[in-house]
């Protein structure tokens, strides 16, 4: 574990990713306490105040401090994406490993259906689900998880097919173990590495998807200072106060980049041979 971490931060991309993520984690955990102002504090004299010593990153149309809103909003953005990715990946991994375990025609049928579900673009599937379940952050998380599961199932299954042919799985079948035991105790632990790498990269998609749903008005609801919502609010005033738009946009982008870098870094750290 420690050795892996050292290998991860030895490369510049891994180091940058880990540093960014540490900052984001601090904002999520202590954003409320560290923010210079209350995120809802209205200051009419400071409307559209440009970045400066009073408001480091400027103020929005109500004179609310953008840095404070950003720091508090981290908690309603990043953990949501993490939960959605975790649930979606777990479901996808179980489907993928299960399909590989069953093999043959069942596997073929499951994967063809899985591919068919993937023909629905993620955002479209998420939108349909949220429009049925009702707007809100919780339902957006469920929708993203469902939209992610088929992709993870496909990735997992391709790895699990190799594991299925290993001797320890054959031995477990010969011992007469049940399907659940073989799937969860024999196969899943051995496909974890690629799943972890893939999910890490997917968190960045989840961050973007969640922000997009909020931007479209069906994800997080006001007065939450979710970042996609902040961008949507600032669009009306983007000519007077472009910082209101650029700051949360940059926060979304940096978070996505951080998870991308971490995923790429993990892949390199876990497969030292692949130099591309």
């Amino acid at each position, binding site marked *: 574990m420690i050795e892996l971490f050292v290998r991860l931060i030895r490369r510049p991309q891994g180091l940058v990713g880990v540093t960014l993520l540490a900052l984001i984690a601090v904002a999520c955990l202590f954003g409320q306490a560290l923010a210079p102002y209350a995120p809802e504090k209205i200051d009419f004299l400071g409307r559209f105040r440009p970045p400066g010593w009073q408001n480091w990153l400027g103020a929005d149309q109500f004179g609310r401090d953008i840095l404070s809103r950003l720091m508090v909003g981290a908690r309603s953005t990043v953990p949501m994406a993490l939960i959605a990715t975790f649930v979606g990946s777990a479901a996808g991994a179980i489907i993928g490993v299960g399909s590989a375990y069953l093999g043959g025609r069942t596997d073929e049928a499951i994967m063809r259906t899985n591919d068919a*579900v993937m023909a629905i673009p993620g955002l479209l599937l998420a*939108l349909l689900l949220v429009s049925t379940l009702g707007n809100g952050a919780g339902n957006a998380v469920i929708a993203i998880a469902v939209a992610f599961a088929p992709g993870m199932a496909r990735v997992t299954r391709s790895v699990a097919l190799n594991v299925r042919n290993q001797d320890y799985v054959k031995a477990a079948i010969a011992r007469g173990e049940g399907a659940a035991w073989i799937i969860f105790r024999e196969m899943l632990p051995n496909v974890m590495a690629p799943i972890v790498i893939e999910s890490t990269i997917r968190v960045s998609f989840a961050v973007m998807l969640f922000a997009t749903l909020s*931007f479209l008005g069906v994800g997080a609801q006001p007065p939450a200072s979710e970042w996609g919502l902040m961008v949507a609010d600032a669009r009306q005033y983007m000519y007077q106060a472009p910082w209101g738009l650029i700051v949360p946009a940059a926060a979304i982008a940096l978070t996505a980049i951080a998870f991308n870098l971490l995923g790429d870094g993990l892949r390199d750290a876990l497969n030292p041979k692949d130099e591309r």
Partner: protein
Amino acid sequence: MSLAWFARRLLLMVYTVIVVSMLVFAITQVLPADAAQSLLGENATPEMLAALRAKLGLGAPAWQQYLRWAGHVFTGDFGISMRTSQPVGPEMLSALSRSLLLAASSILVTLVVAVPLGVVAALRQGRLADTGVSLIAYLGVSLPEFVTATLLALLLADTLHWLPATGYVSPLEHFGDGISHLALPVLTISVILIAHVMRMMRSETLDVLKSDYIRAARLKGLPERSVLFRHALRNALLPVVTIIGLDVGYLLGGIIVIEEIFAIPGIGRALMVAIAARDLPSIQAGALIMAATYAVTNTLADMAYAVLDPRIRYD
């Protein structure tokens, strides 16, 4: 052998469309405990609810409802819009044609820009040009469409006044005006696709350049230019066909946001309007048409790949 492959691929496409139609139907009409209530909202009178339930056939078992709907869709009848009282099908198809124009233009721009950049990055691996290209690619995939769209609009429309910020003019009627209205949305989609295709092109070119036949071509004494263009590029370009086919799926998702932001009356916007108005037939038609479009383009991409690279057909 090869004919069987194509037949099988077509069959898969049909299966995909059927599964997608079931899923769309299940999410929109079966999943809600009372679709009529959720469509009409809390202020609906019992008479209105009863009338809508009868119209949608909500009393019947789910599979009967589905078969009825699917039967109509199969004959091209997507139902009547609850918002405009017009047939949904023609409305959605004309919206789709505008979206496809947007998508095709974006793919064209992407290919023209991304392929050369990817090759340059591969040829100068590890040098400044490569690092620059990789950084831009990273940025491209890390910005959600709505951010890219808004930032580009801020820069090119609001600050520099080069392009109109929103709206749609058909290029068939006013060519110049139509193109300038399409420019921002196309640019936005392309930024993301370029990042994608460029990364792919870079790694493919690197792979191909390491292959034995390239070494053979070089050892034969062929000039570097001919090694690159006649041998390397042809092979490196192949996977781009697949990537474009897959990106259409992404594109159709992204187009929802892009059309919403730039007020383009395409299928994405039609779907958003339908969702906001809880217009069930339009939601179902829009979602099904989008997913079916993806299934078709993906199949075409697969077939194009199989024509270009016959090895695929014997896998």
